């Protein structure tokens, strides 16, 4: 992984303040406030119907807020001088005219923001679409459409990038490619907002998380801290066979649920499952440990636990 370079700015690049969007009486987005600094990939999470797409559309000026503001570098999207040079967005990979070629689609966008024609070839190359540039988009697979949507987002070399489910339809290579791309974009000092329901991918690529449920903010926190704060770790302890009986006796006296693992260790959960305390206890009892490993739950487990209360479209039992 390339080292972090200095970020371009410390000001928040995307700022959402008391953002509210009502359809009739129901708020889709309800007094949402968060801000995103540059140089990070921020994951935007929430169950279906939580208001993720609505929030993104409000940020991108596609929908008008009922109240509150969403600004990019201090200005609403609709007031940006050269929108594609400031913000690149992939909202829906289907938003391309089927009868246009990939090249034509990008040429139209380049023309609208006076971007040099050479940029079209550059982003085609960068997204691996050069070979199909002159084919009609109607014949493209979902994965190729996603790449074209990403090419369009990169066209103006913007400092802010917004991707809604960019991994949909991509194969394993494609997902690995986009993971690397998102990382590089953030390491360049750009602001990257990524909405995805693929928890594993989110866990791998996001530095920061904004979680919403029923249009409200549930969490706005660095990825690591979310997982460490929200969930008590499980701790795996092992000792050599000679010390097994003594460790068993120690484990037995702890305020923790213990599950035997592989015949030589235990997985501990509960108040006493704290690696620092366990290490100290083992030392005090003179038990040499072979392994002492805290195990954090996956983002998916934390997320499920966190959003359980706010899921709007839960399947009937």
């Amino acid at each position: 992984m390339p080292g972090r370079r200095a970020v371009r700015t410390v000001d928040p690049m995307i700022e959402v303040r008391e953002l509210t969007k009502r359809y009739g009486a129901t708020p889709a987005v309800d007094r949402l406030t968060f801000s995103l600094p540059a140089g990070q990939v921020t994951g935007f999470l929430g169950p279906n119907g939580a208001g993720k797409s609505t929030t993104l559309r409000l940020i991108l000026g596609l929908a008008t807020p009922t109240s509150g503001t969403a600004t990019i570098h201090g200005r609403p999207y609709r007031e940006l001088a050269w929108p594609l040079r400031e913000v690149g967005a992939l909202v829906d990979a289907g938003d391309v005219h089927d009868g246009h070629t990939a090249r034509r689609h990008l040429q139209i966008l380049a023309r609208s923001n006076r971007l040099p024609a050479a940029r079209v070839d550059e982003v085609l190359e960068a997204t691996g679409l050069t070979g199909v540039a002159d084919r009609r988009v109607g014949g493209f697979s979902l994965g190729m459409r996603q790449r074209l949507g990403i090419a369009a987002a990169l066209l103006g070399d913007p400092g802010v990038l917004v991707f809604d489910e960019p991994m949909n339809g991509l194969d394993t290579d494609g997902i690995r490619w986009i993971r690397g791309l998102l990382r590089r974009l953030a390491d360049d000092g750009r602001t990257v907002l990524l909405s995805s329901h693929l928890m594993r991918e989110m866990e791998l690529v996001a530095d920061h998380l904004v979680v919403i449920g029923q249009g409200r903010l549930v969490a706005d926190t660095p990825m690591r801290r979310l997982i460490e704060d929200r969930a008590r770790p499980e701790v795996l302890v092992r000792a050599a066979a000679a010390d097994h009986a003594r460790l068993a006796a120690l484990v037995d006296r702890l305020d923790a649920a213990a599950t035997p693992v592989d015949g030589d260790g235990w997985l501990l959960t509960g108040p006493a499952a704290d690696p620092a305390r366990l290490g100290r206890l083992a030392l005090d009892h003179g038990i040499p440990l072979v392994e002492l490993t805290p195990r954090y739950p996956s983002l998916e487990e934390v997320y499920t636990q966190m959003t359980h209360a706010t899921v709007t479209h839960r399947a009937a039992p």
Partner: protein
Amino acid sequence: MSDGGDDRRPHPVSEVTAAGEGRAGWRAAVGAELLKLRGTRSLVWTLVATGLVLPVLAVVVALTGSLQPDDTILGAGLTGAVLAQLLAAVVGALTVTGEHAHGTLRTTFLAQPRRAVVVAAKAVVVAGTVAVVGLAGSGAAFLLGLATLDRAAHPTGDPWPALLGIALTLAVTALLGLAVGAVVRRSAGAVAAVVGVLLAPSLLAPLAGDLQRWVAGASPAAALEKLTQTSDATAETVGALGGWPSLLVVVLWTAGLLATATRLVERRDA
């Protein structure tokens, strides 16, 4: 970290061109709309049909000898004018409804979020293209009429500036289609609505009593028929208003409709 993809990052625009002064404006939007039009087959073919229907029907009139005794060469040559007008309205409507159908309006608004600029650029491109196509088509139809019809038995009619007026009427009709398309959004609905708008004044005029000539004259089809100087354009069917005043009325209410449509486009969520 090894990733399967290309490691080259597109280099920053600032290295390619100086950072843009000003803002993305309507000239850039017009350029984009022209590229869009050229790349969209349904629009190109409808435009081609708009231009061809006039000379083709001029030839049909000559071959079938279906010229009215009191008709002019100009009027007979331009028999296809109202058909061309319907097609022009469809061109206008499709420039907006096609984008709704493909979801590309979102893409267009991301590139140019000042939506009035988008509507203005579409209007310029549609009106300009239809005017050129209309002038070429009606000019060709008139020349074909001169070449094939009996000039001894029929007056020529005044081709100038009527041909310009016809091109202008077709362009205005395309704008009417664009406005209706922007309001209605769906292609089928927009086409049905715009055909209704074109035909309704002639159908409703007899019910309007003293206002008949104004109601009938407000129809884009009436303005067009007057300008083509066809014998079909009687006061009973298209009102007593002359061709140019009729066109002026049509221009005025089309402008109003377009302004309303623009405000609606700006307000609605995309």
